[in-house]
């Protein structure tokens, strides 16, 4: 269930992670605040182009877009009817408005372009690299450590969880809508916490034995190459142009 895919060697993957993070954040903010369709469609197009140049399998992308788009389907079900505006179509006594449909459409483009950018970032950069890069970008050290620990123990605890669930199943546990089920799950979570807590103390002791002084060292150092600068200028320029396009709408 918890899986990462990476390893596709591409131009995007070799970019400096700091550049990728900054670009992804700027891009997401731009897409989130824009309202003009020209801007949004251009943003979507660019996010698709970047996604493809990162060499990710299309099937994988679709799989990752499912959670966002299930939420969007929910929005499509009611937004056209609750938005005041020009009459467009009607189903029974419900009338759909032009504005409502446009609004839902806008949200769909925004969400998907932001998500595609995030997928590109997540797939082309290992999580630990993202952590180190965020630290260099000024994220507090404690938060970065917390990020590393959480990520490291996610898999361990998930394994523990599947082990506990299996042992429940072996003993004939079938989830139903009753107090017994809820109590069993509560004890399952409690057991995860207790074991996690014990493990954390062992981990901490082991770290102290190895001389941990609140600092983590990275084996890989980041360096800005010419490709990074070019990519940054290209993308920042593109984001700036779209920003100007969006901003001049009202004036």
């Amino acid at each position, binding site marked *: 269930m918890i899986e990462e895919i990476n390893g596709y060697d591409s131009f995007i993957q070799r970019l400096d992670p700091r550049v990728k993070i900054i670009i992804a954040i700027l891009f997401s903010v731009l897409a989130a605040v824009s309202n003009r369709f020209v801007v949004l469609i251009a943003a979507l197009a660019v996010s698709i182009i970047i996604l493809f140049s990162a060499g990710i399998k299309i099937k994988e992308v679709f799989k990752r877009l499912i959670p966002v788009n299930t939420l969007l389907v929910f929005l499509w079900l009611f937004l056209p009817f609750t938005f005041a505006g020009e009459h467009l179509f009607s189903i029974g006594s419900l009338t759909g408005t032009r504005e409502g449909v446009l609004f839902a459409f806008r949200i769909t483009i925004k969400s998907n372009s932001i998500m595609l950018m995030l997928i590109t970032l997540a797939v082309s950069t290992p999580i630990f690299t993202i952590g180190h890069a965020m630290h260099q970008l000024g994220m507090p050290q404690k938060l970065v450590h917390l990020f590393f620990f959480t990520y490291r123990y996610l898999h361990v605890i998930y394994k523990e969880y599947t082990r506990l669930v299996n042992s429940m199943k072996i003993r004939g546990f079938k989830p139903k809508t009753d107090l017994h089920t809820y109590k069993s799950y509560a004890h399952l979570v*409690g057991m995860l916490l207790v074991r996690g807590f014990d493990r954390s103390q062992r981990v901490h002791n082991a770290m102290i034995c190895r001389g941990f002084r609140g600092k983590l060292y990275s084996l890989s150092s980041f360096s800005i190459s010419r490709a990074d600068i070019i990519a940054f200028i290209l993308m920042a320029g593109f984001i700036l142009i779209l920003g100007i396009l969006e901003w001049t709408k009202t004036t």
Partner: protein
Amino acid sequence: MHISEGVLSPAILIGGAVVTMAGVAIGLKGVDNKDIPKMGILSAAFFVASLVHVPVGPASVHMILNGLLGFILGWKAFPAILVALGLQALLFQFGGITTLGVNTMNMALPAVICYYLFGWSTKSSIKQSVFITAAFASGFCAVLVSSILVGFCLYLTGEAFSPAAKLIVAAHLPVMIIEGIVTAACAVFLKKIRPELLEEINV
């Protein structure tokens, strides 16, 4: 209960990010280096718990457990939830970059509120029945406040969202009851097996 990307207005995204930054700053202030492995493993445990689906009649809901997290961590719930949601965004694309602030606020603020309302009950001098009630209330209220916050964010973005906002709060009613039961049972379990888990971090 994630709010998806591109839905909310910029003002609310900024507001959420500011509240989250403040909460994380307060949360991190009390964190010592020796607390970090503990917090990391707890936030990983909560991440995994949110993947557990519990049946409700024919459907199923996943656990949120922000009430329990607030009970154990207090203000430290802010950094813990931020990290867990950040990882969810990177690993599963549940939520993205711009909504991270709002979503963290919607989960962590209720956790902190529950910590102040019910955190006192973890003391060993408190009667068991009072403790169980407080734990139930904590689980219930955390989800209630979360769903109200989500609804409120949507409502402030546009009037058109108000039916959806109401629907979200109503749909979470069964979740609140289940969370209450699970939080209470889990708190009792922890108090019996490892009482220091409820007390030690909770300073």
